[in-house]
């Protein structure tokens, strides 16, 4: 399986400039929960108004979850005003495209106890995304929310939304009842692959709703401990996706692990490869080293970028694992732990930086050209 | 004076040839349960086509590997010129903390410790023992630590890495207090993740097949280390050492960097921590080599060690006689000499106080 390559003929037609910076995780949010009502059937209004996206609490953070300086002038919630977000984040950093990922609560609609409610929310969020955000600026690209607790409905929703030109991926929460490699989810991957859409997962609901403890050791006590250990879930899912042969069954599927950390890659790759050398016969559908599937199918995002006291060490980690071809810049705007593009990529050599800042995302999402001045399809 | 040990194997799985071996050490009232149910936590572990043991380690036709102390001495210790072997029992023995009935778990702990002394430690001074405890009853565990700690050849406490609660939590603190007071490190060993009353082996749920399960065991170790540091266990027990046996190594840079970064923002939520989380790991946690990670370019593993100071925390282990055991002659071949010396012996010499070779001890 090759990486999506730009065909020469396609390339020749393109006149515009290549993007230089793509932000793959921007959390557009609702200012007022009522914003969603026009997109939600009346029958769900009471439940939505009274319970919203509620799936239980996680450990308390003294810093809060959003940046204190990102409140729009109208006093609303950070990242709830598409015009202000452009002024506050997109323009100042010269971001060519922002992949809108909704909020972690939106992503977590798959964890509602009632899958019918989850389905209604998915549809409403997607329509809201198109109306309130994608129509505002061509630099915004959307993620299709799906409710994986009802794969049939999820497939229907992917098919409904995939033709929208500014929807560039499917998004779901990383917290789950079953590991993502298992056959329960395969129809979702079939639909994503058929529509040429990557599937992205985002953390934030680990241990909430009907999911498992966020670590195999149990529930962390405080927010820092919880936040430290979120990547375990990503490692568990990627291990499952590879071992279950998802990328053999869906050879064109790409999986985006947003905000799940990066530097665990060497460990996981080496351990999987070593075990595969002994236990290949138990996963006879795998034809390559497990690390090879990761390199070809899994993308990761930078934020929260690891910050070793010697920044060279992070570059070494990238060199060991080929991470420079699978990692994409993300700011996580407007969350408390967001990264500044000017600083997060500073440790990397130029070529690596260019790939991480834009080239990898450009190929994955087929965003080959910058939006022309005053142009673009809305 | 003599020279210091050159090779210490920190994970050797001494086992029983026959469950009946334990009966003399077990009160009569528990005999039926032991003979009919064993430890009873095995549950539905994923199947492996290779089996769990080396196929060349049977002491005799049909006899369980590593169940004969004399054979093990010849087959493993002498052949590999191992100065000391830290006996860790089997993963099933380590699982006594996970049996539903804590009273049963506690008598098994006592019986296993007496069996270790009688059947193994008396056979050879090359053998050093681990004290089994049942952490689901901390009071009983403390009693057992106090009972066994004075035995000169017991060098650490051992428990299962699979647990119902993260190991940093206050429920376990009396055990750490007893370990610290007796100068014994606390070791944890994997193999029971997801079994008995423990949470699933990954936050994503249950792996499907053995390879997937085996790939992902280190998550539990990362969760435990994170909990131990954040809960301030090493501030409360500043002399406590913790040994993460067979839990992988190369995840250290990631975990250290992530913990340090978060600490810089969230220090006020763990005001008992006075240093970077990575510093607690470096000062208090030991890890063992097997199954050593094998990147295509072995220098990458050396780089990982250099990034996180692992050369001072990692100790050689063979995992004899498990299928995935490491050969001391090949493991770490690419490592610089000084690093290798620390990993093969010096770190374990320091941790367990085994600063003399057996022949020099005997001379004294």
């Amino acid at each position: 399986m090759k990486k999506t390559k730009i065909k020469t003929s396609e390339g020749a037609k393109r006149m515009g400039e290549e993007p230089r910076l793509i932000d793959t995780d921007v959390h557009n949010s609702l200012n007022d929960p009522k914003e969603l009502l026009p997109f939600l059937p009346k029958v769900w209004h009471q439940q939505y108004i009274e319970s919203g996206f509620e799936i239980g609490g996680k450990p308390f953070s003294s810093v809060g979850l959003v940046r204190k300086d990102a409140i729009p002038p109208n006093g609303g919630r950070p990242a709830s005003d598409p015009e202000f977000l452009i002024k506050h984040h997109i323009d100042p950093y010269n971001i060519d495209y922002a992949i809108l990922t909704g909020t972690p609560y939106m992503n977590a609609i798959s964890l509602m106890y009632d899958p019918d409610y989850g389905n209604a929310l998915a549809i409403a969020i997607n329509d809201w995304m198109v109306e309130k955000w994608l129509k505002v600026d061509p630099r915004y690209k959307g993620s299709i929310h799906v409710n994986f607790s009802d794969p049939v409905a999820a497939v229907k929703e992917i098919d409904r939304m995939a033709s929208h030109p500014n929807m560039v991926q499917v998004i779901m929460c990383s917290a789950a009842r079953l590991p993502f490699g298992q056959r329960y989810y395969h129809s979702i991957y079939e639909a994503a692959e058929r529509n040429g859409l990557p599937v992205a997962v985002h953390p934030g609901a680990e241990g909430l709703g009907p999911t498992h403890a966020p670590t195999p050791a149990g529930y962390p006590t405080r927010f820092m401990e919880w936040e430290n250990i979120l990547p375990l879930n990503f490692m568990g899912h990627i291990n499952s996706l590879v071992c279950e042969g998802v990328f053999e069954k869906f050879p064109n599927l790409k999986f985006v692990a947003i905000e799940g950390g990066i530097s665990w890659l060497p460990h996981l790759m080496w351990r999987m490869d070593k075990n595969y050398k002994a236990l290949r016969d138990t996963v006879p559908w795998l034809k390559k080293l497990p690390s090879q599937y990761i390199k070809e199918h899994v993308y990761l995002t930078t934020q929260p970028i690891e910050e070793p006291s010697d920044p060279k060490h992070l570059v070494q980690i990238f060199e060991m694992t080929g991470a420079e071809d699978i990692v994409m810049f993300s700011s996580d705007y407007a969350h408390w732990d967001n990264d500044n593009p000017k600083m997060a990529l500073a440790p990397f050599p130029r070529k690596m930086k260019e790939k991480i800042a834009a080239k990898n995302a450009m190929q994955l999402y087929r965003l080959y050209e910058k939006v022309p001045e005053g142009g673009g399809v809305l | 004076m003599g020279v210091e040990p050159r090779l210490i194997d920190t994970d050797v799985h001494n086992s029983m040839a026959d469950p009946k071996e334990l009966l003399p050490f077990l009160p009569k009232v528990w005999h039926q349960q032991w003979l009919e149910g064993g430890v009873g936590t095995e549950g539905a572990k994923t199947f492996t086509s290779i089996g769990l043991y080396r196929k060349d380690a049977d002491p005799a036709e049909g006899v369980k590997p590593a169940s004969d102390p004399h054979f093990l001495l010849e087959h493993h210790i002498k052949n590999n010129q191992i100065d000391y072997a830290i006996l860790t029992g089997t993963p099933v023995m380590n699982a006594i903390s996970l049996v539903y009935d804590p009273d049963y778990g506690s008598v098994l702990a006592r019986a296993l410790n007496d069996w270790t002394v009688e059947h193994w430690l008396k056979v050879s001074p090359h053998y050093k023992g681990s004290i089994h405890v049942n952490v689901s009853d901390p009071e009983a565990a403390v009693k057992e630590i106090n009972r066994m700690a004075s035995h000169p050849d017991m060098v650490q406490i051992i428990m299962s890495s699979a647990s119902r609660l993260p190991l940093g939590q206050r429920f376990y603190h009396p055990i750490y207090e007893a370990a610290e007071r007796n100068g014994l490190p606390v070791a944890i060993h994997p193999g029971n993740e997801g079994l008995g009353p423990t949470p699933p082996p990954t936050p994503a749920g249950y792996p499907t097949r053995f390879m997937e399960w085996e790939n992902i065991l280190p998550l539990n170790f990362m969760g435990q280390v994170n909990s131990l540091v954040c809960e301030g266990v090493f501030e409360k027990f500043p002399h406590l050492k913790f040994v993460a046996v067979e839990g992988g190594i190369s995840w250290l840079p990631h975990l250290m960097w992530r913990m340090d970064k978060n600490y810089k923002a969230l220090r006020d939520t763990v005001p008992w921590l006075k240093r970077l989380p990575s510093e607690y790991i470096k000062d208090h946690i030991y890890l063992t080599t097997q199954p050593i990670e094998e990147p295509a370019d072995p220098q990458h593993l050396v780089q990982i060690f250099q990034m996180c100071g692992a050369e001072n925390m990692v100790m050689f282990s063979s995992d004899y006689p498990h299928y995935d055991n490491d050969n001391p002659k090949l493991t770490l071949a690419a490592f610089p000499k000084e690093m290798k010396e620390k990993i093969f012996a010096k770190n374990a010499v320091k941790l367990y106080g085994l600063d003399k070779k057996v022949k020099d001890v005997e001379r004294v």
Partner: protein
Amino acid sequence: MKKYEVANIKEIHNKKPKIVEVKGIEIGIYLVDGEYYAWRNYCPHAAAPVCQGVVCGTRLPSMVYNYEYGRDQEILRCPWHGWEFDLKTGQHLVDPNVRLRNFPIEQDGEKLYVFLNR
């Protein structure tokens, strides 16, 4: 060093700084424990506008599972990552090598002045 008038003392309150711009540099003027301080509105960690963070106290270093609140209104907490800075010294509470940039400040009657090398 040049002297620039930046505020009237009536504009500066505990908890709420005045953020001024002098020669292209944003500076937060703080009143802490009766003293005035001028800190650059730039977090050395990730270049966030640190002076938009809350002024608060913190949990003092303590024994395991003990909680003691203190240093009320002496801590500036960055609005992005929540790094805590000592408003009297500019030091990050975790890493003593990380500190906010300070400008000399002078009070003359009701007026406050900062000194800059430009």
